[in-house]
Each structure stands twice: as structure tokens, then as C-alpha cells.
């Protein structure tokens, strides 16, 4: 069973007629030598002069094979070699250990719907939160650390994966580590699997694509349930250091309690996975500088984002237009210090304003969360893989091409001798 990723090249097959034509030329069966006294010899019958015949059959076969190999190489012919395959998320094995690895965090940068609901109910105990999207935004970076925080022996990832593999009937199948973007990867590599092969994806979570690709093989996606991902013993206090955010706060003593209350409210937002540490002066890790004091900050202070009061005398702010985002009137300007948000309303006095500020901040400074894909069984949509113009040609064909070329040259040379 062979497939071709660039099938249009097969249209070049009539080129094979050329060597056939060359080797089937009309030749003189009797080779004529010049002879001065030929006129004294009896004349040969003229009908024997020119006949159709095959010449150098081995060379013809070699040349035809060479052309076929060349066309096959251009057409991207390959032999599918993979059978039933399990794609296992390496994050599952990593979650076995007590500490969360960075791989897991990378892979599960999103949460399932059930997790989302859990977090929402948790948030309702804090500031008055009505909108679900607040929780969804919050979850962006909170779930992964929390879910990986602890794992118990009875529900570790490997055991769950084994159980899924057995229940899906993939006991003897080949195992591959889950590639980063598995569904587009499968689409690009689907010609590697034999027709009728099945695939099982066992992962902690998968990003939801805009559209599921229609693959040539049946794909079964098994995702680890959220409950298993998030053990009951996890507390909001168990926070990884990576989710700690440093904020430099420079304010007057009378406004300082309001700012501290605001950031402690941010601590409790979402699933309580984010921790905001307030410092006196900015460091290299500082993400935000709050300048709510009279005068100008030292020129060495740098941060990606500044929140300043409206009487902050930066030249860039003078020309900035007033915009209103989520009900907060802001002037936004980019300066050498960093991006500056100037407003007269902070520190926010009520929970709604605080929530609006938090939402705006998160929405503007963080990437959108990828939506988790559901568990799914996809049937085989086609019997043959799609033509893939970018698929690399098979290496063995290139070697065959090289060997055939060398043989053809050798034989041609030997024939001339």
C-alpha cells in the first residue's frame, strides 16, 4: 500500500515513452562498412535494411525504473508504517511527582468547564462577583500550578492513562509522546499511519481548535477528568512561586491602606492562585509600579506598566486621549519608563470598580485563554490521506534514485566500450 502526497506528478508518467521510443528505434540490421570494391559484391536485398527491434533491454529497464523513481520521488510516494498508536501526554507522567514540572504548566494553560465552575463558586465568597467571564479570565494562569501541586498514589496520571489504554483496547499499540499541537500535527503526518489504524490521545487536557480536522484515521481523545487533575486537598494558600507578582507601591500614608486592600482583593480573585507582593521600590521582577505620590519617581524606575494619578506630570500623558474601559476613565501613554495608565479614580473604593480594574488589567496584559477541548471520538473521514505539498519526499526513494542512476551510468559506459 503506497500513497502519494503530490499526486499531480504522476501525470509526468508519459515521459517513460521517451526511452522506450529510443530503444525501439529502427536500426540497420546489417551494419554497413565502407568498402571501395563493394560494387563487385552481390547486392543485398533492400527489405532487410531497416527493422524495428529492441536494443539494450536491460538499459531500457534501468532507465524506465530511474524515471519512475524520479517521478515517485517528486510525487512524494511513501509507505505508511505506523499501526495503532497511543499519543501519551508527558504531562501525565510528570504529574506523578509531587512538584509540578514546567512541562505540565505549559501543556495545561487552560481549564475545563468543571474547573471553571469550581473557581466561580470560590470567588463568590470574596468580593461581589456576578460575571462568569471574570472567573474565566482569572483561571488563565491559576489552574496549572494548582492542579500540579500535589498528586496522590491512587489517582496519579500514569495509572489513569494505563486504565484508559486498556479500556480503549490499545494494549499492544505503539506509544508516542504527545506533540505540542497534536491535531494539526496529526493532519500533517496522517500519511504515516496505515489505513485502518486507530489513534488514542491520552492527555491531561487539549486546546480546543476552531474546527476539528477531518483525519483519515479514527482518533479517540481521552482527557483526564478535572477532579483527578485537582485533588481535594489543594488549598488556595498552596501557591507556586511562579504565580507571584511583584508590585512596587509608592503612595501617601493615607492612601496606602486602600491600595493594600485592593491588591489583597486581587489575591483572592479567581481561584486564589495569584499572589501580589507589594514592594517599596521596583526590582527586576516588578510587573507594575503604582505611583500615587506627589512629585516624580526616580528616573531609574522601570516597569512594563505604571498606574499613576491624574496629576502625574509626564510629557507623554499631555497628548494622550481620554479612553473609558470597563467604566474606568484612563489616559494611556507609552513612555521610556513603560506604559502609563493615568486615572483619577484609583485606588478603587468599591468592589465593582476593583473588579473592573482587575478585569481590564488582565484582559490587556495577558494572552487569551485557550478553550479546553472535550473528550471526543472522531471517525475516519477518508480512506486515503490528503495531498500534502509540503511533506518531505521519502529518503529511501532518494537512495533508490541514486543507485539506479549509478547503475545506468555504469551500464552505458560499459556498453560504449
Amino acid at each position, binding site marked *: 500500500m503506497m500513497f502519494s502526497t503530490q499526486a499531480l506528478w504522476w501525470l509526468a508518467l508519459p515521459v517513460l515513452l521517451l526511452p522506450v521510443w529510443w530503444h525501439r528505434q529502427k536500426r540497420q540490421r546489417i551494419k554497413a562498412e*565502407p568498402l571501395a570494391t*563493394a560494387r563487385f*559484391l552481390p*547486392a543485398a536485398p533492400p527489405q532487410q535494411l531497416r527493422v524495428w527491434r529492441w536494443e539494450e533491454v536491460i538499459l531500457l529497464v534501468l532507465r524506465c525504473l530511474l524515471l519512475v523513481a524520479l517521478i515517485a520521488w517528486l510525487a512524494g510516494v511513501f509507505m505508511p508504517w505506523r499501526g495503532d498508536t497511543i499519543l501519551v501526554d508527558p504531562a501525565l507522567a510528570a504529574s506523578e511527582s509531587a512538584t509540578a514540572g514546567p512541562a505540565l504548566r505549559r501543556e495545561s494553560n487552560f481549564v475545563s468547564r468543571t474547573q471553571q465552575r469550581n473557581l466561580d463558586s470560590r470567588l463568590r465568597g470574596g468580593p461581589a462577583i456576578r460575571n462568569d467571564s471574570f472567573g474565566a479570565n482569572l483561571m488563565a494562569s491559576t489552574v496549572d500550578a494548582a492542579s500540579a501541586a500535589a498528586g496522590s498514589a491512587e489517582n496519579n496520571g500514569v495509572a489513569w492513562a494505563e486504565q484508559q489504554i486498556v479500556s480503549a483496547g490499545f494494549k499492544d499499540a505503539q506509544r508516542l509522546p504527545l506533540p505540542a499541537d497534536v491535531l494539526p500535527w496529526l493532519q500533517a503526518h496522517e500519511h504515516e499511519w496505515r489505513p485502518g489504524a486507530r489513534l488514542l490521545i491520552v492527555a491531561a487536557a487539549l486546546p480546543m481548535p476552531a474546527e476539528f480536522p477531518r483525519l483519515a484515521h479514527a482518533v479517540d481523545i481521552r482527557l483526564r477528568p478535572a477532579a483527578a487533575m485537582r485533588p481535594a486537598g489543594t488549598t488556595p494558600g498552596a501557591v507556586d512561586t511562579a504565580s507571584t507578582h511583584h508590585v512596587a507601591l509608592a503612595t501617601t500614608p493615607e492612601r496606602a491602606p486602600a491600595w493594600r486592600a485592593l491588591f489583597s482583593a486581587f489575591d483572592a480573585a479567581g481561584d486564589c492562585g495569584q499572589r501580589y507582593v507589594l514592594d517599596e521600590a521596583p526590582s527586576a521582577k516588578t510587573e507594575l509600579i503604582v505611583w500615587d505620590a506627589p512629585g516624580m519617581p526616580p528616573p531609574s524606575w522601570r516597569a512594563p506598566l505604571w498606574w499613576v494619578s491624574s496629576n502625574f506630570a509626564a510629557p507623554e500623558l499631555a497628548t494622550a486621549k481620554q479612553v473609558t474601559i470597563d467604566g474606568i476613565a484612563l489616559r494611556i501613554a507609552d513612555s521610556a519608563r513603560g506604559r502609563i495608565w493615568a486615572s483619577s479614580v484609583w485606588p478603587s473604593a468599591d468592589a465593582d470598580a476593583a473588579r473592573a480594574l482587575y478585569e481590564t488589567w488582565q484582559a490587556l496584559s495577558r494572552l487569551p485563554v485557550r478553550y479546553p477541548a472535550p473528550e471526543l471520538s472522531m471517525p475516519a473521514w477518508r480512506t486515503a490521506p490528503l495531498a500534502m505539498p509540503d511533506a518531505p519526499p521519502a529518503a529511501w526513494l532518494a537512495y533508490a534514485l541514486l543507485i539506479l542512476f549509478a547503475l545506468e551510468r555504469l551500464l552505458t559506459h560499459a556498453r560504449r566500450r
Partner: protein
Amino acid sequence: MLETPALLAHAADLDLIIRHVLAGLGHGIHAGRERGAGVEFSEYRAYAPGDEWRRVDWKLLARADRYYVREAERDSHVAVWLWLDATASMAEPSRQVAGLDKLWYARTILACLAAIAQRQGDAFGLVVCTGGRTEFTPAARGPRQLQRVLAQLSRVSATGDMPDAASLKSSLHFARAPSLVFAASDFLDWPSPLSEALLRLRRMRHDVRLLALRTQAEVDGSFKIGTGYRDPEQGDGLHRLDAAGREAYRTALAAHFAGVATDCRRHDIQLYQACIEQPLSLALRGWLQLAGARAR
């Protein structure tokens, strides 16, 4: 050195071959340099009654008190014309000696004749029939003429056909004075424009001497059986030799050359037949002696 025809055939330098071939031949077969009244001093000879008084050297008489007569070399008035047939059929190679063909043999033997003529002080010229035209080198004497003729001979290659009868006939005016014509060809076409031109020369009272060249394989008919052969000058298709045809071939060829010989005898033309495998000096000697025999 240069003992066999094969070795000779591989020597590209005509000058060297001439020196080798003529090594035993001296200054030719007949004494060409007549002494008498001329420009170039040769020797003194004792006065004999009947000598012209103006040829007596008076200064020598004053010194020696004897009569001496100045002898000078007299220039020969016989021009030698070398006629080379360089048509495609002359490219016929020897099937026994590699690198030897009829054209090479004819060219070399004519070069030797040119050298002999130059040594004897005769004027000599060259006529080459090749590629449908005739190339003339006017007759002259001296070593530079020899070099000119040798260069012309080395340049010739065997291509094309004989020029037609009309153009050959119109170009025969070269030999007004009685001259010697040495023509080397294979004479496979007879009668032909070439034969007509030579007979015409003979009728103009020139001394015409022909050298008919053949290869040993042609004489024996020892070609490969089953191979197809074509005539290089006549595109009349393919010929093939089979076992029964060999004898017929020999008969036909012998009859052809018998006809040529009869024709030559009738017109008093010397014909010498040679195989290109035989030594060059032998063929040269045989050709020249044939003419000498008639002279005696």
C-alpha cells in the same frame, strides 16, 4: 627502423619517409642531369676537337697552358606531373595493417617521386582530384617547390567524388610541353573522367604512367562474410559477401583490371599494379623500372 609498412604508415613526416625510402635509390633511376651549356658551373673538361671556342676558359689556358672547356649543368626540360586521386574510395584501409590506407600509400609514393624529381633538377607539379574539384600546384623546380608539394600532399584527405569529365578536360591545358605524368589511383572506375583525361594526355604525347593501388584483402576477397558493405562513392545500397559470392567477386575484379590493363596497353600507357601492404620502396622501384624497361 621503419622497416615494415605498418611502422611507415605511422610516421607522419613525409620528409622522413622519403629519406628512408630513397636511401637505396641514389639520385633516381636514370641520370637526369645533363651537362653542357648552362648557368651553373659543374666542372672543367679537356678540350676536344669540335668544342665551341667560346666555351674554352682563357684564364685557365693562360695559367695552365692547356685548353679546358667549362661545363655547366644543363636544366632539364622535362616537367614531372604528379596526379593524386583523393576521392572517397581512396580511404580504403588495409585490413591487415592498421593505420595504412590507399591514400597514404599514394601520397607517400608521389612524395618520393617529387623528391627524386627535385634531386634530378626537374620541374614538378601536383594535381589533386578531391571532393569534386581539381587542385593544381604549378610545376617548378627547387627545394622550396618540394616543400610546397609535400605540404599539399599532407593536407589532402580522401573525400567526395572525381570531378566531372568537362571540368577535367578543361583543366588539362597545364601540360603544353611534353612531360611525365605519374598518376596514382585505385582505378576502380574505368572508363571514368580520370581515365579519359589520362588517355587524352597520352594522345597529347605525354608520357603517362599509372599506379593502380589495391589492398591485399581486395585481391583475395578475404572480407568478413555476412557483413554489409557500401560503396563510399556510389550510394547504390548495400552489398553483402557470402561464401559463394567470393569467387564471383574475385573474377569480377580480375576482369575489371584486365580490362584496365588492355586499355592501357592499347594506348601505350604504363600501368603498374601494387598492393599497399607491399614495401613502399619495392613498389616505387617497380613502377620506375617499368617505365625504364620501355625506354630501353
